[in-house]
């Protein structure tokens, strides 16, 4: 029986092998089925291995050193509780995506641009989680970015994708350089790049603060922390849908892993101001992300933006964990940390599910613009059902999993008065309010997404003639939906499974949930607060069925189909339905005017004029216009100015040389 880490590395090797194989045979017929089924198998093995490891005893980590990478260091890989959890997330997503790809991949226009990079991408994410020295970590990190970039560029001819790829690559490299600086700081001039050495070393507060900021830049830009999120809504939708699912559902989590690994594990005990920064950024990200999503009409971009919101939620939880940890309240830190990890897990589930749904809609109708869809619930019953589950889950509604993690986060927040620092005492309730706002907006946003896409009447011929997708895609979605429900009604099991990580990282853990009555969970004590997803679900089902029973027992069964009532107004054309823009109108009025300088321009033709009236919505992306455009402009201007040097005459060039010489001589004359 080989050790767990070796098993994982073997799986990675297998994936890389598959990538090479895919290059060789990518243009053949069977390639798609072969590659995806193979990746499915490998990811499944890795998933099982990681799960057994986490449920077994992850107390003692296993390591592996390969003679590659930095010569005098070698490449270190390590499997501990934390990495095993993220391995589960990665490989679960990978397996689901592969299964989905088995069906979806056959609609791919350019398989030879997807197949080689898909396994490589999976391998890259696995490696990042396993890496145990700075060099390997960064190498795998950037490898992951590179492969995902290649996948984004798969449909490079579609307008905008090239730009998306460019922005993505630049932001990714920005993040990597930030991480590079952070590790340089941690490793010190001697260059001890091994994580073990970094962990052992003690770091001054100055270093700690700098590293935290650099990690927020580095990992944050990959995770999509506002204002570093700009690449995300461009890149994620550009990729094929199962890849979008991986990028949104899994790769952002790998970024979170990087943040946790460095800030919680390597950096040693945190300082409380750190938590203030993280909480602030997290809450801003949550609200801004979902507001962006609310304004969006493109289904996949909407999902990408909602990813940003979830990242914000996770960072808020991590910030709370930092705050408690900094004050030595291990139990509460463990609570917040567990909430964060739980949300990581949940989001990877339902975001993958939703992107699969978007992919299914895309294959069925060829449209990503919600205003061209509608009424799909009649044409694609199964897809619409699972997507509904996904929407309920992501909207944090009981009894599904999204609610549990958000509930845990709120529970952690309710403990914040125990914190000694006034800044935190006052900040946390505000953050909580913003989180609640975000949660409500998420519900609104997904009512809109689901309502416009699947309900109502079809707005286009494509939507009218859509057909249900294939079996593989459906099974992938159903599996994820089931997992969403299970994690929602049996949260105790998940929390207990996560406890080794909190013990490992924070040195504390939440109370054991397994011996709570009726499988309910109580974060601190039952007297304070408790929740039981299973019973809630049972109650709802029972009371709902009771109602149904009584009604069909005693009330009339009569049912007549007729035209919609609509107060007598019969909307002749489906276009007259509420579109996504009109659904967002109230929230646009309330929040958008502030966040996006949103304006509605109505062009109402005078009486007698038969032109249709037009409504134009003006939206601005403040972050892009205030932050990125100025930077780009500055670079453009300065390069324009410097570019004159390309067109000088030889005499001028000689003058440059002359000036340099004289300056250096002067320096010498003055200096020495």
């Amino acid at each position, binding site marked *: 029986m080989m050790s767990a880490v070796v098993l994982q590395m073997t799986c990675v090797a297998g994936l890389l092998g598959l990538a090479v194989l895919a290059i060789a045979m990518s243009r053949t017929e069977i390639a798609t089925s072969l590659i995806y089924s193979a990746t499915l198998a490998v990811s499944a093995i890795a998933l099982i291995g990681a799960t057994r490891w986490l449920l077994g005893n992850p107390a003692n980590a296993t390591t592996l050193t390969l003679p590659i990478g930095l010569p005098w260091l070698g490449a270190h890989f390590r499997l501990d509780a934390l990495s095993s959890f993220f391995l589960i997330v990665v490989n679960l997503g990978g397996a689901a995506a592969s299964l989905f790809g088995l069906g979806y991949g056959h609609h791919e226009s350019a398989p030879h641009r997807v197949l080689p990079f898909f396994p490589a991408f999976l391998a890259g994410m696995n490696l990042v989680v396993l890496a145990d020295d700075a060099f390997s970590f960064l190498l795998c990190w950037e490898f992951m970015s590179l492969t995902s970039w290649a996948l984004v560029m798969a449909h490079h001819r579609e307008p905008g994708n090239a730009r998306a790829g460019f922005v993505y690559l630049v932001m990714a490299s920005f993040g990597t350089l930030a991480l590079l600086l952070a590790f340089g700081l941690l490793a010190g001039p001697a260059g001890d790049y091994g994580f073990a050495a970094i962990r052992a070393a003690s770091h001054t507060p100055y270093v700690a603060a700098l590293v935290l900021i650099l990690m927020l830049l580095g990992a944050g830009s990959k995770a999509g922390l506002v204002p570093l999120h700009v690449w995300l809504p461009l890149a994620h939708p550009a990729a094929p849908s199962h890849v979008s699912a991986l990028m949104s559902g899994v790769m952002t989590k790998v970024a979170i892993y990087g943040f946790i690994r460095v800030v919680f594990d390597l950096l040693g005990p945190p300082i409380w101001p750190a938590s203030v920064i993280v909480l602030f950024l997290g809450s801003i990200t949550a609200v801004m992300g979902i507001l962006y999503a609310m304004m969006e009409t493109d289904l996949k971009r909407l999902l990408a933006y909602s990813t940003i919101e979830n990242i914000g939620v996770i960072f808020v939880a991590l910030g709370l964990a930092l705050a408690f940890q900094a004050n030595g309240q291990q139990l509460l830190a463990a609570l917040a940390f567990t909430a964060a990890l739980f949300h990581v897990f949940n989001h990877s589930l339902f975001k993958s599910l939703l992107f699969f749904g978007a992919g299914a809609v895309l294959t069925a109708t060829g449209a990503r613009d919600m205003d061209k869809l*509608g009424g799909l*619930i009649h044409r694609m019953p199964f897809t619409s059902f699972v997507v509904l589950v996904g929407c*309920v889950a992501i909207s944090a*509604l*009981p009894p599904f999993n999204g*609610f549990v993690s958000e*509930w845990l986060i*709120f529970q952690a*927040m*309710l403990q914040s*008065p125990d914190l000694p620092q006034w800044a935190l*005492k*006052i900040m946390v*309730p505000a953050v*909580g*309010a913003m989180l*609640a*706002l975000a*949660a*409500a907006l998420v*519900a*609104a946003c997904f*009512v*809109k997404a689901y*309502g416009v896409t699947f*309900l*109502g*009447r079809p707005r286009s011929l494509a939507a009218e003639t859509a057909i249900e997708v294939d079996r593989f895609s459906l099974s992938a979605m159903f599996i994820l939906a089931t997992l969403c429900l299970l994690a929602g009604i049996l949260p105790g099991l998940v929390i207990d499974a996560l406890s080794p990580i909190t013990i490992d990282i924070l040195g504390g853990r939440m109370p054991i949930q397994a011996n709570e009555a009726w499988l309910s969970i109580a974060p601190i004590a039952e*007297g*304070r*607060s408790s*929740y*039981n997803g299973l*019973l*809630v679900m049972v*109650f*709802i089902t029972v*009371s*709902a069925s009771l*109602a*149904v029973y009584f*009604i069909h027992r005693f*009330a*009339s069964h*009569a*049912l*007549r*189909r007729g035209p*919609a*009532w*609509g107060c007598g*107004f019969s*909307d002749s054309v*489906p276009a007259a*339905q*509420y579109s996504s823009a009109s*659904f967002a109108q*109230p*929230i646009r009025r*309330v929040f958008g005017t502030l966040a996006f300088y949103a304006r509605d321009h109505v062009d109402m033709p005078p009486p007698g004029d038969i032109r249709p009236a037009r409504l134009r919505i003006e939206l601005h992306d403040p972050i892009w216009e205030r932050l990125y455009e100025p930077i780009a402009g500055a670079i453009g201007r300065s390069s324009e100015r410097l570019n004159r040097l390309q067109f000088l005459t030889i005499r001028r060039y000689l003058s440059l040389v002359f000036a340099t010489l004289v300056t250096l001589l002067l320096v010498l004359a003055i200096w020495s």
Partner: protein
Amino acid sequence: MSDIFVQGTQMLLVLLLAPLLTGFVRKVKARLVRRQGASVLQPYRDLLRLLRKEVVLADNASWLFRVTPYITFAAIWVAAALVPTFATGLLFNWTADLIAIVALLGSARFFLALAGMDVGTSFGGIGSSREVMIAALAEPAMLLIVFCMALVAGSTQLSTVANFLGSSYVGLRVSLGMALVALFMVALAENGRIPVDNPATHLELTMVHEAMVLEYSGRHLAMIEFGAFLKLLLYISLIACVFLPWKIALVGTGPLAYAVGAGVYVVKLTAAGFFLALFETATAKMRVFRYPQFLGAALMLGLLGTLLLFVSRSF
């Protein structure tokens, strides 16, 4: 043993009282404007009539449209069953704390909003979009109110809160008062009462909840109406159990205490209903885009209350 009895009675009690409360409020409002008004039992009659009628379903209504009434009703009922009314120590109070109860109401709203979108008329769209906006504004305020209570009672478990506030002397807290006002405003918004929404209107572009359920008829409509009644009752009993847990029967006290508790509960309901009616007659419905100010005020009150608590706790 007493727990299960309490739980059972509670579940039935809310079912029974909910329409009565609404009927009472309507009656009082009618009397206040010098109308005779329908009898307080009218809501029961309405429900029965609706149940007997046939359902007219729009051509392109989907299965979601048909299951929604039952889901929403169930969700609200469960929520209502978990709020201590006349006695604490319900059997299942630990299945969901206050946050979970709010979330349950949230899922009810979620499905109702979806149902509003289902038929594809613009009225449904208006209703749903405004409903979700109001929710988005109300939830932060609600959370801060929860924060406030949790700080005082050290719990979000309603029975515990009620026990705590009922038994030990908390004293008159400014912040609790603020929280009460905030909760009242949120309750108005959530139940679609004046000034946020007018439950008695149709064919007005200002309506929210009614527009959302416009396509419903027959037994489905009955379910939804019933849900609305329950929701009103729930909020009032929530206010009652948190802010005036006076005479609410504690765990293990004998049947007499239960009887007293029940009686007092009815009195509380009557008073609250009367006050609500009074308030609704006294105020005018406001424009849709005034809601942000209204609920923003609630939010501010909640935040203020929380911060004041810190101050008062800190010495």
